[in-house]
């Protein structure tokens, strides 16, 4: 009866704010220069598989030129510039990001498939906040606790993932620039478009040529970049598998390395938790951005004594998630970023069922075109199941139970990863007791997936090393 009373009409955000060029070239030395490779890749809207634009693939020669431009900028302008002056450029970039927020949010949604609600309310505000935050640090580095006169390292090679394309760019570029380093950045092959608009923003901000260089491409371009002899620092966010290869490539060189890799975050719900808010947190923890979040709470550890009450509420809440057109302002769950990623999610979900766990999804219609996977909850999962151990990077939640706080901590820590965890309890002492024992770079207390530029982010174990954001994040870019 309800649907007739009050079914939300489509409320799509307009695409007209975005003017896409037919093709994009690498941004080197302050100019968009044709790639010498002659190759290109097509960036596709994952929600309907329509091509959006051609983006050149940067070859060895392009990477060479970019690194040389970055070196020149480092030596001649950027590293010698007073911090207060560098800060002005960062403030300018931050303001332009805010001014062009709507355009960038729509473009990010088109290129990535995530809902406009998230790009509008999360990705863009946070990206701008990172530049604002680090702009403030630029002239205060002697007070960062890293010595009286910390020095920049040089040219930073940065490789970022497709799950938060512009936000990850901001996480990488803002601290590098604030500390006086110059940058060669490779955006992800499936989501290069906001990075290409960021190149325009650098021009608009009149950033000195070569301070930021952007070399789009796929894996080989990334490999060329991180193995280039001219770079002094490598920063990577992405899969543990690629992170391992990069660590091997960089080993034995003078290059400094930070890695922000995968995760299998646990959300621990104690029996005294504020149930309705815990349900919200679990849902936001694993279904936001379709679960394409390295710090996603993909394992729910719920105390056995409340599991029976908690799970029906969780299912009821998931049934209300709205999956569909990512540009619709009322969409909660968007498209899976690529066919390859959809394949991986399907494979891992299939092993869950094969290993005896029970899958549940709400009755929801998937659009015919595009890459889609319904929110899925696995119950009856044990620590030995692959879905409890491997990062799925999709909207798939594995539910496990525990009986005592000790067991909760033991299970939460029993993973090769160590990026994030959430704890839900109304009891302060239990919160602290648990947080102290969790081996995770971030522990959220009665919330989940909250990010802030002032708060360091990073992992333990196979989730990588180094921190991004906050005072700690500066250390990765200062010698």
């Amino acid at each position: 009866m309800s649907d007739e009373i009050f079914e939300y009409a489509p409320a799509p955000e307009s695409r007209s704010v975005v003017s896409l060029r037919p093709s994009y070239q690498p941004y080197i030395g302050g100019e968009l220069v044709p790639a010498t490779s002659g190759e290109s890749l097509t960036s596709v809207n994952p929600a309907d598989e329509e091509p959006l634009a051609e983006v050149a693939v940067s070859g060895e020669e392009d990477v060479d030129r970019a690194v040389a431009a970055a070196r020149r900028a480092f030596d001649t302008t950027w590293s010698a510039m007073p911090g207060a002056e560098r800060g002005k450029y960062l403030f300018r970039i931050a303001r332009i990001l805010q001014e062009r927020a709507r355009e960038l949010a729509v473009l990010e949604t088109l290129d990535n498939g995530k809902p406009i609600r998230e790009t509008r309310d999360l990705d863009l505000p946070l990206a701008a906040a990172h530049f604002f935050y680090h702009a403030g640090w630029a002239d205060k580095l002697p007070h960062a606790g890293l010595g009286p006169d910390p020095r920049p390292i040089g040219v930073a090679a940065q490789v970022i993932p497709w799950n938060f394309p512009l936000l990850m760019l901001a996480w990488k570029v803002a601290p590098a620039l604030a500390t006086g380093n110059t940058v060669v950045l490779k955006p992800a092959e499936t989501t290069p478009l906001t990075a290409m608009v960021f190149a325009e923003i650098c021009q608009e901000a009149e950033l000195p040529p070569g301070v930021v260089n952007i070399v789009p491409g796929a894996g080989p371009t990334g490999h060329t970049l991180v193995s280039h002899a001219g770079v002094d620092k490598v920063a990577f966010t992405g899969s543990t598998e690629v992170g391992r290869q990069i660590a091997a490539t960089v080993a034995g060189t003078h290059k400094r390395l930070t890695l922000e890799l995968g995760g299998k975050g646990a959300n621990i719900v104690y029996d005294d938790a504020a149930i309705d808010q815990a349900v919200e947190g679990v849902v936001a923890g694993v279904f936001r951005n379709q679960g394409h979040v390295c710090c996603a709470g993909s394992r729910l550890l719920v105390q056995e004594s409340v599991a029976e009450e908690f799970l029906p509420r969780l299912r009821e809440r998931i049934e209300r998630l709205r999956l569909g057109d990512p540009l619709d302002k009322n969409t909660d769950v968007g498209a899976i970023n690529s066919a390859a990623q959809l394949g991986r999610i399907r494979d891992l979900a299939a092993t869950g069922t094969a290993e005896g766990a029970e899958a549940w999804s709400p009755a929801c219609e998937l659009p015919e075109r595009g890459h889609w996977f319904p929110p899925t909850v696995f119950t009856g999962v044990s620590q030995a199941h692959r879905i409890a151990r491997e990062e799925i990077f999709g909207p798939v939640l594995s539910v496990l139970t525990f009986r005592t706080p000790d067991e909760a901590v033991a299970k939460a820590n029993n993973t090769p990863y160590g990026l994030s965890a959430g704890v839900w309890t109304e009891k302060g002492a239990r919160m602290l007791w648990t947080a102290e024992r969790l081996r995770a770079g971030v522990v959220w207390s009665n919330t989940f997936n909250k990010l802030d530029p002032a708060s360091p982010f990073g992992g333990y174990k196979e989730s990588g090393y180094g921190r991004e954001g906050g005072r700690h994040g500066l250390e990765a870019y200062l010698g």
Partner: protein
Amino acid sequence: MPDTASPPGPAASNASLRAYLRGLPGVDEVGARERAGELAARSIKSAAKGRAIDLAIRMVDLTTLEGADSPGKVRAMSAKAAHPDPADPSAPAAAAVCVYPDLVSVAVAALRGTGVGTASVATAFPAGRAPLEAKLAETRHAVASGATEIDMVIDRGAFLSGDYRKVVEEIAAVKEASGSAHLKVILETGELGTLDNVRRACWLAIRAGADFVKTSTGKVAPAATLPGTLVMLEAVRDHHANTGARVGVKAAGGIRGTKDAVRYLVLVNEVAGAAWLTPDLFRIGASSLLNDLLMQRTRLASGTYPGPDYFTLD
């Protein structure tokens, strides 16, 4: 879980009531506010907006609760409730008019045959500071005058001092005095201080026999808020899950524009569920809201904004 445990009846001691209320799951204020904020960002357009506006009009308790109220004012408001838009007979009628007890008979006479209910505040509204006998006498007077709905206030002083038994007993007594009239229990969330208290007061009211739980008198700031209403909707949703019975929710005070009203409907839809999207289970207490709803309704139909003079004063 405490929610499913059968709670102490009205005759229970304060100690057992306290134990029961403390056993309810807590409300995390930050999380509740965040959820309410997320739902407030829903975008309701075109046909959905049209349906929402009509639904909101049907849910309005058109209210006047001033010392200056007169029979003439109540008659005018009653006419407005029955035919909100004289220029457009397709505009639905409001749910009820809400007045002080001494004006109930005026409203009842004016509303005869219209299908619009007459709600009366009672129990020494808005403070509730009167002896129980006086509150019951007031309630009986309102019912005898023909009120179909009674909006009572809880004793916030008793609630905040931990005398839950007094709160429950009063509600139960007023319920009995209300007879067949629907009982709305005003929690006055603006005086309860925490969302934990809102949830607890909700449970007390529901267990004591409330047909509706209502946010506020409108005389205390803040009146209705989205997070407070969210918690109340969660309580009635949980009560339904446990018992199969549906208790209504009324948000009153401070809801002035169509946008606000639609936000409340989204909240109802996504928290309690679509079954609550009926005037039988959700009401909005307001006065100036109705004209804004009518103005938006006309704009949707005609494409232009008529000026305020095209709509009648209450």
